[in-house]
């Protein structure tokens, strides 16, 4: 099941259960989805098993699942918003606090650029509108 309660299942399947879950920051604000996962296979320490080191999120991470058109579209949106050097956001696995119906991160809004798009919309578009 995707809506996993860890104490009941103990272990979960990453592709099925973790990918596509919503992310929640420290202040319980939604900040995207788990778009991909990073496994560390570096052979610096031979014999060490591969390790889950990060989850990947953000429009560009999502766009990759849609191929070249998706990526171009996402880059276009970034350009439109004037965000320079867009890249998929990697959240270190050590910042994941809990996995249940959502993935809870130990990150505040300001600490990472998960919210680059929404922050830009707020600052560049909404700043001049009354009542925002």
């Amino acid at each position, binding site marked *: 099941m995707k809506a996993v309660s860890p104490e009941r299942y103990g272990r979960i399947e990453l592709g099925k259960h973790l990918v596509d879950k919503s992310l929640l920051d420290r202040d319980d604000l*939604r900040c*995207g989805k788990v778009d991909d996962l990073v496994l560390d296979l570096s052979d610096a320490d031979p014999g060490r098993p591969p390790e889950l080191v990060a989850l990947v999120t953000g429009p560009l991470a*999502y766009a990759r699942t849609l191929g070249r058109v998706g990526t171009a579209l996402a880059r276009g949106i970034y350009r439109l918003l004037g965000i320079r050097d867009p890249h998929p956001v990697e959240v270190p696995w050590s910042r994941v606090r809990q996995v249940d119906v959502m993935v809870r991160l130990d990150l505040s809004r300001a600490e990472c650029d998960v919210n680059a798009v929404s922050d830009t919309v707020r600052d560049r578009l*909404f700043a001049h509108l009354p009542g925002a």
Partner: protein
Amino acid sequence: MLERRLIGVALHRWGIDPPSPFVDPRNPYMSDAARTSSTALPTRHDDQPTGRGRGLRRLAGLALGVLAGVGGFVDMGGVITSSQAGAQFRYALLWTVIPGIAGFAIYAEMSGRVVIASGRATFDLIRDRLGARLSLLPLAALSLVNVLTLVVEICGMALAVQLLTRVSYLVWVPLAALALVLVLWRAGFEALDNAAALCGLVILITVVAAVRLHPEWGQVGRSLFHPSPGETHPAGLYLFSVVSLLGAYMTPYQFEFYSSGALEQSWTGDDLVTNRSSAIVGTIFGGVITIGLMVAAAQVLHPAHAQVRSLADAAKPVATAFGEVGLVLFGLGTFAVSAGAGLETALSGTYSVCQYFGWDWGKQPRPHQVPLFHLLYLVMFVLAAGIALTGVDPIALTILTMALAAVALPFTFIPLLIVANDRDYVGEQTNTRAINAVAGIILALLIVVAVAAVPLLIVTGGES
């Protein structure tokens, strides 16, 4: 749209919000998953009435909600498609109300239950279950229909003002769009949605008009329960009308709006009962109004071989029964129900996209707190007003959009059915066999009729 208003708003306004499902570990209706989570949604625990007072207030809230719901069921799509059906086919399409009612009640209840039991929003679940790529299909279908429905509702408001002032609707289109944007931006949604729904009650005038126009009740009753093909009409046009009527009864935005409202107001297991009963009560009211529209049109427009080509045509039956007063009431009613539906369509559109991408959503926080949520409906309104201002025939667009809505419905119904039968998401609250059977029949009807209508329409060249 209706049910959330029926209960959610009503309960909220009467101060009887139930405690959040996410903080009650004993709640027997919650799936394990939802029970272990807590959520970002604000919960209100202040001055909860208890005992008998609570029961009374709940009842009063429900009554208010039902009243608001009656006005909220029908929208511009319903007004036009039902009137046109009565004008073209007299009573022959009345039977569509029955699957319409059943389908709406079944799927509204299902979407509410899935959200309550899983603690997650509809499109959050759909993407989780189907994956990012596959779930893009229902999202795209829903978004397209939502933008077109928004065009329809904005045109409905503008045409109603045209009906009352005789000034071209094109003048009113930007004003109508702007008014709705301001309501959402300033977070006046709840109050205005309720006001719109209560004003929309005057649309009941069509039911009174239908009675006053002395229809052949025996035949009306028979037509309701015995599907009869329109004998003298091209089959393509008949089927197309069935499709657009079904789309008007069950417009996709309603389900997304309903279930997201349930989540935003933190419904609990207790609310499952209310969810179920209100889904049924509300749709029956809506069905009565639809029957009124269709019968009244059958009495006045059908004998004259008239078609509904403008809102004024749709107003003719009421005007025949009540004169100028009827016309004004019909105009006011259409304006109000279109405004309410327009707000809900815009919210539904922005809810679904935000849930798919995992962006923060909700109409309680201010725009600077949830910027993408507010940006999305701004984009929707710009698109919709732009389409309306091209001068495309608003009545033809309404009928076409409702048909398209019916075609898009399986794209949201099928994922919903999958999730509602998955214990991993909803725990004990999976669909019963009976619900699955009825839901399956409705789905099959939608698909068969939609698939058959298009080629038939081309072959017979049926004009509308």
